[in-house]
């Protein structure tokens, strides 16, 4: 009993969070990176998942409950991406500040126009999202819109640092707009390319760069492919005139690489979020690397 008591006391002493102005709980690495850009030293930013994890398939782990309990602001994708774990976290964290509807709950996907809103919501179609594709971070123009809204939300919950948030926002937008223009120019050769994707992760990226999604390696969203399905897909690829294969760092590469090998198409592993590749250290690196990897796959196809 004594040992237990000491352990608890020690845990308190060690684990009490360092005092920054506000605590931000972010569901995915891209929102962690954006929060750091906008909040700088005025906030402690916690990122609940890594780029190696499938953001659909997270459990309401004890560490996440503890971090959400202390948060002043939760920044998540929303649009049902975290439907399996965020409601459970919110109930157990007992933190009124970050409940949906409160200013402390920020859903990034709800700030932008979502694509692929299904006309038919049926689980026979796989793990679909009734509010549309939640992977909005793959288009830098969405990041811009979300940055503006997130800075406003930071100002709302921490008005004392409002001037600093406004200044960091303007600074970020200046750098971001210049970078976006650069990526657009670099990515111009990708316009009209036809891609096979593993999961429907890329609707926004493709809409931005003008790439066309012609097939998915998953038969239905969230359903791993069977060998029969892959065989059929391989038969189908020549008819679809596909040029490259795109998959994310968090996905098992084997199916994508197998299809690439058999079809002779170049495969591009994309970081998908901050930390997905070594080069994707922050949001700028994420798009630098995404565009570079797409271009290198595109030119690999052009060569033979």
């Amino acid at each position, binding site marked *: 009993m004594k040992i237990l008591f000491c352990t608890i006391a020690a845990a308190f002493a060690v684990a009490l969070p360092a005092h920054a102005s506000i605590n931000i709980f972010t569901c995915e690495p891209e929102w962690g990176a954006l929060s750091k850009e906008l909040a700088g030293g005025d906030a402690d930013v916690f990122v609940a998942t890594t780029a190696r994890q499938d953001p659909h398939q997270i459990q*309401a782990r004890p560490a996440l*409950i*503890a971090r959400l*309990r202390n948060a002043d602001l939760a920044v998540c994708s929303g649009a049902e991406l975290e439907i399996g774990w965020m409601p459970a976290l919110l109930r157990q964290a007992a933190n009124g500040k970050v409940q949906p509807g409160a200013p402390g709950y920020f859903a990034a996907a709800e700030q932008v126009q979502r694509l692929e809103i299904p006309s038919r919501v049926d689980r026979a179609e796989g793990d679909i999202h*009734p509010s549309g594709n939640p992977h909005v971070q793959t288009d830098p123009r969405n990041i811009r819109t979300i940055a503006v809204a997130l800075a406003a939300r930071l100002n709302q919950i921490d008005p004392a640092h409002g001037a600093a948030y406004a200044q960091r926002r303007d600074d970020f937008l200046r750098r971001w*707009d210049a970078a976006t*223009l650069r990526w657009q120019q670099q990515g111009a050769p990708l316009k009209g390319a036809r891609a096979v994707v593993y999961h429907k992760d890329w609707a926004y990226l493709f809409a931005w760069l003008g790439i066309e999604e012609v097939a998915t390696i998953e038969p239905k969203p969230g359903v791993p492919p069977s060998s029969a399905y892959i065989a059929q897909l391989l038969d189908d690829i020549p008819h679809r005139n596909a040029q490259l294969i795109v998959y994310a760092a968090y996905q098992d590469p084997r199916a994508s690489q197998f299809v690439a090998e058999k079809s002779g198409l170049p495969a591009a592993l994309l970081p998908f979020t901050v930390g997905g590749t070594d080069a994707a250290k922050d949001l700028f690196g994420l798009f630098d690397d995404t565009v570079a990897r797409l271009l290198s796959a595109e030119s690999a196809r052009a060569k033979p």
Partner: protein
Amino acid sequence: MSFKLARIAGVCAGLAAVAAPAIAQEPLQQELARLKEEMQRTMSTYQRQISDLEARLKAVEQKAAEAPPPQPAPQASAAPAEAAAPPSPPAFPPPTGSAAPGAAGTGAGSATAFNPQISVVLDGKFNAYDKDPANYRITGFPLGDSAAPGPRGFALGESELGLSSNVDQWLYAAAILSFERDGVVNVEEAYAQTTTLPWGFTVKGGRFFSGIGYLNEQHAHTWDFADAPLVYSALLNQQLANDGLQLRWLAPTDIFLEFGGEVGAGDAFPSGGGANRGVGVWDAFVHVGDDINDASSYRVGTSFLRTLAHDRTTDNDASLFTGFSDTAIVDAVYKWAPGGNPVETNLKLQGEYFWRLERGAFDQAPYIGHLEGFYTQAVYQFMPRWRVGVRYDRAWAADVDNSLLGTAVDNMDHVPVRYSTMIDYSTSEFGRFRFQYNRDEARATGPDNQFILQYTVSFGSHPAHNF
């Protein structure tokens, strides 16, 4: 008209002819570069302005959507004024209040918008045993009425209908009804819980699964085996549910540290008849958990449970128990997945240890029971959709007074153990088929081979990925 156009064209051609040599004198490339730069600047400005306008438009739309139909005049006039503001204001646009409809929010607007989340879980089994479950014993343990394995043959298991919703800005409520073989509808859980109390407190009231141990709070269909561990069957009659109140406090630490306590009516095993006196169950628990690294995390806990029994009936036995039981539990669970991504492979280790001191009388015979037991299990997903698991159960009861020899609490010098193994296949997150084999040596009369086929399907609102 055509004459006018021709004239303009003529003038233009003339101008071009005059201007061409003049431009050619300047370094042409420099000029081009300047033009290009200008163009880029313009494009970037336009893009910024367009996104700004889009954001503003969206905010206005949202505001309009939120505003009640008879829109007050000042608000209506404010919107266009705001839209006409210059593009990149240093200040923040006025907050749109609770703009985010929330992750769990459904499409609003229709009469069904306030319907609760509905989930249905169908859990069916086919059981084949060597021995008749009607004569089930865990030697040395006084058992409740749900301790025995389910009936032989096909049976609908814990099929349940769950409704849950936020009640208002303060409360969340859930009701889970289960359907049994003989048409009885059982209220498994029905509780209201606070969502916004300050300082990390949560109060829950109603009927709910107690927070003691690890498995107890989870619904049976989420367990990794088709049946409860032997100690759960023996000491908690499968699972302890209270009609009562629960208070939890989550400490403001970076590691998960939770304290909880409950009081309950105590009309169910290991209590019994306590409802007559109002309160028959008290318990307290502490949970600690954290991530060890990206790939692994744990939770450990300890719980203490005191229950009062007043003429508690014992299954398979006519005698009545009056007295109290004190139970202590330690539990631990560890989860690992490569990179923390459980989609391909993952491992889950868990175990719980129970001690119980029961003191009172069976009919008139004085009884002091020292009951103890544990289970430990490992479940491994070796490829997507497929998992295998093994479990070991052991429980033992100390010797009792001579006056009780030959009754249900006589240990007959036998230590109940059980070996279990299972394999399951998931069609998706929402469907699972399982085959389980137990070699159950709970009875002193010899081992029982148990084969269980189980299916669990859930539909309706998305199930929670609990730890």
